[in-house]
């Protein structure tokens, strides 16, 4: 008896929505196992990471605050991923956006006025957009791989952040600490729910999700992004420019990452510090995939990842687990999602072979499957996009 994968005639809608849930469930199970093997109380660790943040109403505000930047960045990335444009340097665009906005804040620190915060936000968006314009230019002009350039620029952005904090932007009254002065009340994001930490960035993230959903599903631009990703040749025949799509998607994702950056700086941080780079740009990649590159899915996935962040802090204080373990969990979620995604296109069948005298094959069912299946020209993601857009 062995397992066999049979191609489905069309992608399963049930699996399309079911696999992210399955991936989270498998991550929880694997987490219990891993932590138990490492000598911790596995159940307690998982309770702290995945349940405690939801069970404690006091921490809900933290969930929204953590989810907002993840959702904002992931929305931008998902637009690009749909068009097969792989911007993985959102972390750099997030940092540069925040730096640009901080520049405005430092230039206006002794001023007052309602215009200051919008000016900072505009600078933040522009900063992220310009940082993403570099890989866009290199990709469209010289066909340089955007994966490597956008990523290299992240490391450059981190060094730029360090330089500005230690050098020209250091708070003159900060006792030598490498950070800027605190932003004034004109330069910080207002909270939208009195008495909580929930800042303006939270409703903006939700609003952006709805806006992106409408653009992707209802406009010609949204259609162009999908068609360039799914069928580049058909797109060219239809008059859609691949080059234009690269520009559009990279600039959009850069602008979104920059917006998230200045929101974080003017919101939770209220200043710039060398600790500003917290890998939201990378985690947002997981959010985009877990959310199926769909704006509403991304909102849900952003909340799930926010739970793991807040829970990671819980587990650190309660059980002494290193905070970095959170990243491992987040990656495992993506691993499991990519693994179970095959169920969207294939049906798992238990096959009893006629000849039971060949146990060697049974020991390597996966390798056998790979040779027996049918060749497909598109990736699982393409199939998902197809069914999403159907």
């Amino acid at each position: 008896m062995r397992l066999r994968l049979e191609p489905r005639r069309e992608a399963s809608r049930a699996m399309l929505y079911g696999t992210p849930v399955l991936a989270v469930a498998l991550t929880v199970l694997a987490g219990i196992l891993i932590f138990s093997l490492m000598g911790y109380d596995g159940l307690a660790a998982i309770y702290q990471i995945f349940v405690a943040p939801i069970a404690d109403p006091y921490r809900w505000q933290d969930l929204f605050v953590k989810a907002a930047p993840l959702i904002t960045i992931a929305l931008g990335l998902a637009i690009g991923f749909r068009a097969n444009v792989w911007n993985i340097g959102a972390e750099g665009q997030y940092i540069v956006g925040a730096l640009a906005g901080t520049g405005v804040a430092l230039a206006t620190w002794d001023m007052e006025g309602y215009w200051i915060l919008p000016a900072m936000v505009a600078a933040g968006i522009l900063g992220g957009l310009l940082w993403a314009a570099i890989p866009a230019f290199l990709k469209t002009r010289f066909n340089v791989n955007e994966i490597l350039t956008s990523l290299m620029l992240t490391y450059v952005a981190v060094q730029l952040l360090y330089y500005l904090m230690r050098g020209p932007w250091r708070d003159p009254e900060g006792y030598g600490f490498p950070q800027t002065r605190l932003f004034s009340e004109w330069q910080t994001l207002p909270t939208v729910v009195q008495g909580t930490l929930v800042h303006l960035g939270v409703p903006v993230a939700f609003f952006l999700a709805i806006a992106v959903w409408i653009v992707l599903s209802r406009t010609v631009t949204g259609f162009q992004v999908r068609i360039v990703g799914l069928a580049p040749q058909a797109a060219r025949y239809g008059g859609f420019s691949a080059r234009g799509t690269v520009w559009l998607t990279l600039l959009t994702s850069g602008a979104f990452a920059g917006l998230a950056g200045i929101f974080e700086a003017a919101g939770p941080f209220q200043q710039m510090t060398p600790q500003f780079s917290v890998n939201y740009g990378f985690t947002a990649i997981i959010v985009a995939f877990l959310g199926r590159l769909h704006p509403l899915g991304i909102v849900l996935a952003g909340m799930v990842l926010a739970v793991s962040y807040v829970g990671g802090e819980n587990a650190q204080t309660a059980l002494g687990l290193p905070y970095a373990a959170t990243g491992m969990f987040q990656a495992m979620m993506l691993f499991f999602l990519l693994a179970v995604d095959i169920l969207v296109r294939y049906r798992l069948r238990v096959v009893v072979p006629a000849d039971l005298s060949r146990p060697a094959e049974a020991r390597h069912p996966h390798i056998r499957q790979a040779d027996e299946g049918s060749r497909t020209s598109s990736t699982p993601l393409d199939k998902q996009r197809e069914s999403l857009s159907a």
Partner: protein
Amino acid sequence: MTLVGAATPILLAALGELVVEKSGVLNLGLEGMMLIGAVTAFGVTFTTGSASLGLVAAMAAGAAASMIFAFLTLTLTANQVATGLALTIFGIGLSSLIGQNFVGRTVSGLEHIFPAALADDPIGRVVFGYSPLVYLSLVMTAFVAWFLTRSRAGLILRAIGESDEAAHSIGYSVIRVRYLAVAFGGAMAGLGGAYYSLVMTPMWADRLTAGRGWIALALVVFASWRPLRLLGGAYLFGAVMTLELHAKAAGINIVPPEFLAMLPYLATIVVLTLISIAPSGRRNAAPACLGKPFRATG
């Protein structure tokens, strides 16, 4: 950090990735596999006291991590870009989790193979004064060059990378060869990671590789998928990476250190651009099936 010291780990990791990409697979998880190798090498050496055991364990750990990638992308035909990224994020988290007990601890590191007396004078130092991994990286460069161009197995591997369908139709097992290539790439990345924790700084620190895995990836493109050019490229990058220290030693402090630290990454972007502008012969050197999923028919 010397030029050779900066070049060797990225050369080791890039050699593995070169073979992987020649077979038609793009594994972006180098950084993660290097970190897993680094923490394993440190942990095993710290526990057993044997650096050679640490090296072997690092290779096994790198290969094991690469098998997660191989299973997802080759067997389950998952997206290679997404899976590779997940592997890197996973490696950063896992190495940090395992390494938390090692932070600040030291090990005695890898011993030199040549007796110290040989490396006494300046010339002797240049020839005999390095870590065994440096010599190993040179030997491996020659081996990979020989394997890809002169051996039958290497020819099959390249054929699979250029045209998986054709190779499959004449009876070669595309998936099996790619599994082996990915495992080799993982072991080499593990070895590269071990260089950081056993040779460069015999002390554990979080995210020890600091993005060098990505530079190794860029190096493969820079070398147009040729092992000997990879060797030259690695030493060129090694020179750029050590500029910061050389500048400091020479008393040059006009340029802030952060800008010097940006140089390897900026250099990578410049070099990738130059390669792309170069005549089309080199530009098209990428294996034709790079990054494409394969499911055989019949």
